């Protein structure tokens, strides 16, 4: 029992966030008369918010280095979609090549900012403020106020789903459609989504079991069986409910695969690799990290270069969803990403925060955006609510920290 308590204490912030997400989903679920959790809406939520998730993952690393942020990502999203769109439409190269061109553009922008921040020591706030103005300006010059329509691969990434491998075979056996009183009740589930969800969750369970066994065999310490079982079962249920839900609509969005891969890769980097550990250490105490052999300049450079690359991915995704490159896209994206990280438990001083937290934070932002839109809340009032949530999330953090601090 004690070990569970200790585990909870150590991870209280994360569980608090998930709890907050559940409360917010329930609140808007009720406030929207169930519309929020309609399969069509859930599927749309995923596609609509993929860009925040992608940006929040990159932003989390910036914040981890010492509370630094990147203000330029919104402008960079616009610039990348403009550059890539221009290549695909006006120049006429194939979409896939234009997309790669867009990613390279973002990476170069990231390298550029990383250089000034890491090696010239211009504070990130200033460098990225400059970037925000420069990228937005270049974007406007390129597009000259026009909107470029996009098609092909962009649209597939932005709105497409993986084809159904066995249509009309798995019925809506839980009768969720009736339960939600949907107008267009799905008779059958999308088999691809349902099977992918089931297979992944089974792999997860097996992996956890084998991992635990091998750890015990090698004499390593493991978490108590009870806490592992609770965790595994809840994950299993959550994954399957989620995939069932999407299976009721048009199945597995391409965007979800992209986001899931990015999430997995960056979580791995943050928690299991030396560069990840070095970023956390420098955020905690940059002097101590330097004297322990952490190359802080290189880390800074990598983190901001990576942010450029992820902003480019977000740019392509956004262009695909809107099926166009337009001059005004990406406005305030940086604020959504920064807000997600802080809601998700990042410390404003660096060194504390998880990719997982950023993702949960982004979902909270997304659900609030979506829920408030369905209710038909005034856009300006929506902005007020989001601002207050960010403020209160950080205030809660500070409060709980001051409570738990030892003398």
């Amino acid at each position, binding site marked *: 029992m004690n070990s569970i308590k200790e585990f909870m204490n150590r991870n209280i912030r994360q569980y608090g966030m998930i709890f907050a997400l559940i409360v917010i989903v329930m609140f808007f679920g009720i406030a929207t008369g169930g519309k929020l959790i309609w399969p069509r809406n859930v599927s749309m939520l995923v596609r609509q918010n993929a860009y925040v998730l992608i940006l929040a993952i990159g932003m989390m690393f910036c914040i981890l280095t010492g509370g630094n942020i990147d203000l330029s990502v919104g402008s960079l999203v616009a610039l990348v979609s403009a550059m890539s769109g221009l290549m695909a439409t006006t120049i006429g190269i194939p979409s896939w090549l234009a997309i790669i061109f867009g990613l390279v553009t973002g990476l170069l922008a990231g390298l550029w900012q990383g250089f000034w921040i890491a090696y010239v020591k211009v504070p990130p706030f200033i460098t990225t403020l400059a970037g925000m103005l420069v990228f937005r300006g270049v974007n406007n010059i390129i597009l000259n106020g026009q909107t470029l329509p996009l098609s092909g691969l962009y649209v597939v990434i932005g709105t497409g789903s993986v084809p159904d491998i066995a249509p009309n075979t798995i019925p809506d056996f839980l009768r969720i459609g009736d339960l939600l009183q949907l107008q267009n009740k799905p008779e059958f589930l999308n088999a691809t989504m349902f099977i992918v969800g089931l297979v992944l969750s089974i792999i997860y369970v097996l992996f956890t079991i084998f991992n635990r066994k091998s750890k015990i065999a090698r004499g390593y310490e493991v978490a108590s069986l009870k806490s592992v079982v609770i965790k595994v079962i809840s994950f299993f249920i959550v994954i399957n409910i989620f995939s069932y839900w999407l299976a009721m609509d048009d199945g597995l969005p391409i965007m979800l695969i992209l986001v899931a891969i990015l999430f997995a890769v960056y979580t791995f980097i943050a928690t299991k690799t*030396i560069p990840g550990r070095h970023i956390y250490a420098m955020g905690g105490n940059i002097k101590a990290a330097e004297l322990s*052999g952490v190359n802080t300049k290189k880390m800074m450079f990598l983190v901001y270069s990576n942010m450029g690359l992820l902003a480019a991915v977000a740019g392509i995704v956004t262009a695909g969803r809107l099926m166009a490159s337009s001059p005004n896209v990406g406005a305030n994206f940086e604020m959504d990403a920064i807000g997600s990280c802080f809601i998700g438990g990042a410390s404003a001083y660096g060194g504390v925060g998880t990719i997982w937290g950023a993702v949960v934070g982004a979902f909270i932002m997304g659900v609030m955006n979506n829920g408030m839109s369905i209710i038909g809340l005034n856009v300006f009032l929506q902005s007020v609510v989001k601002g207050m949530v960010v403020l209160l999330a950080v205030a809660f953090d500070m409060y709980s920290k001051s409570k738990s601090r030892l003398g």
Partner: protein
Amino acid sequence: MSEYILEMRNITKEFPGVTALSDVTFQVKKGEIHALVGENGAGKSTLMNVLSGIHPYGSYSGDIIFKGTECRFKNIRDSEAAGIAIIHQELALSPFMTIAENIFLGNERVKNGVINWDETNREAIKLMQRVGLNEKHTAQIKNIGVGKQQLVEIAKALSKNCELLILDEPTAALNDEDSNHLLELLCTLNKEHGLTCIMISHKIHEVIKIANDITVLRDGKTIETLDNTEKVSEGRIIKGMVGRELTDRFPKHTPKIGEIGFEVKSWVAYDPLDEERAIINNVSIHVRKGEIVGLAGLMGAGRTELAMSIFGKAYGKKISGTLIKDGKEITLNNIEQAIENGIAYVTEDRKTAGLVHIQDLKKNITLANLKAITKGFVINEDEELIVGKDYRKRFNIKSSSVFQKVGNLSGGNQQKVVLSKWIFAAPDVLILDEPTRGIDVGAKYEIYKIILELADAGKCIIMISSELPEILGITDRLYIINEGRVVGEMKTSEATQEDIMSTIISSSAG
């Protein structure tokens, strides 16, 4: 009316998982200097934080009686209003403001809502005279030395008309001259103005020199209050602090010295801010395997700068000279290379540069050598846990578990974590910079034991220390550094404190 100006009765203060103070009673007579001593983590600072309202009323149990009335301070302002001022170990001065501005910071002289600069300056000059501070009141804090900054803090406290002044380790960062000046000042203020002082200190001889009464805390409990009018002995106080008589301050040890393991030849480094000024001037030293070599010298002699410039050029510009390890010349252009080549530097600045306070024990220990627990690209966290537990046990690091954040540990235990980190990095050459600074007697002994163990394992150890008894007690050979040069070398067994001091002084004159 009792003779006591302050009585703290049955104070108990708990933090999550730790009882910092249990049923502590502490009484201070009016007009005395009362010293509060104890090992790190004994609860001295916590007790003073309770008294000054940093831990507000309600977060502890027990009573505080000040000048005959019960006090319930909610914050520092309340306690200041009552006449209690506290000067922390870390000075609370604003570096870019002037002395006068700092003295009245938070207590500005105001006329009709506007700062009255004439009065501010006039009063500041008066206060500066009272504390014997010879500087212009318009000098910026960053431009005056630590000793003088300490005087500014005292002037600041006096400006608030305090009747009880608490000083937390006031001389920890000061050299002997500044320390003496400060202690004399305290005696003067005490005798002439009747100011009551509570002084927390690790420097037992200072305590004996100036205190009227000495209260000893151990493990959050009051052990005893000694009357110091007859000057109690150091041994007596230490006995109270550690609960046993410490006959030997240094562990017994027979050195096993081998061949030369590390050599620095014609080392030169320039000041990073002034590239014309050589801070390290043609230094050549060597260390044998299993040998502990001391670098003795005054503060600012260039010892830390020497160590850091060797450690992957972490300090200094235009560095030149040769480093030879195991007979082979090595080049260390950055700290990564230094670590890879088996050099470790344990910083003197534990608090700001030694540890990542928000991370736990095990992550701090593995930070400098993550490669050792990484396979492919993946850090093996299970292995890390084992490493953490291993070091925690081996060095007796007092903590709730390896998951405890190091910011919550006491100074001695933090230092053990820093040492663990560098020992885990498996170096052949260890440079220890003030490894026992700010650490209590008991923990010092344990640190010495670790150092000797490392030497016996065949490591080359360079130890920088400003405490001459420590250098004489633990090293095998020593170099005397002054003004960036080696001015003397002696076998420790043949050296005395007087020899070292006279070497330093004669080299300065020449």
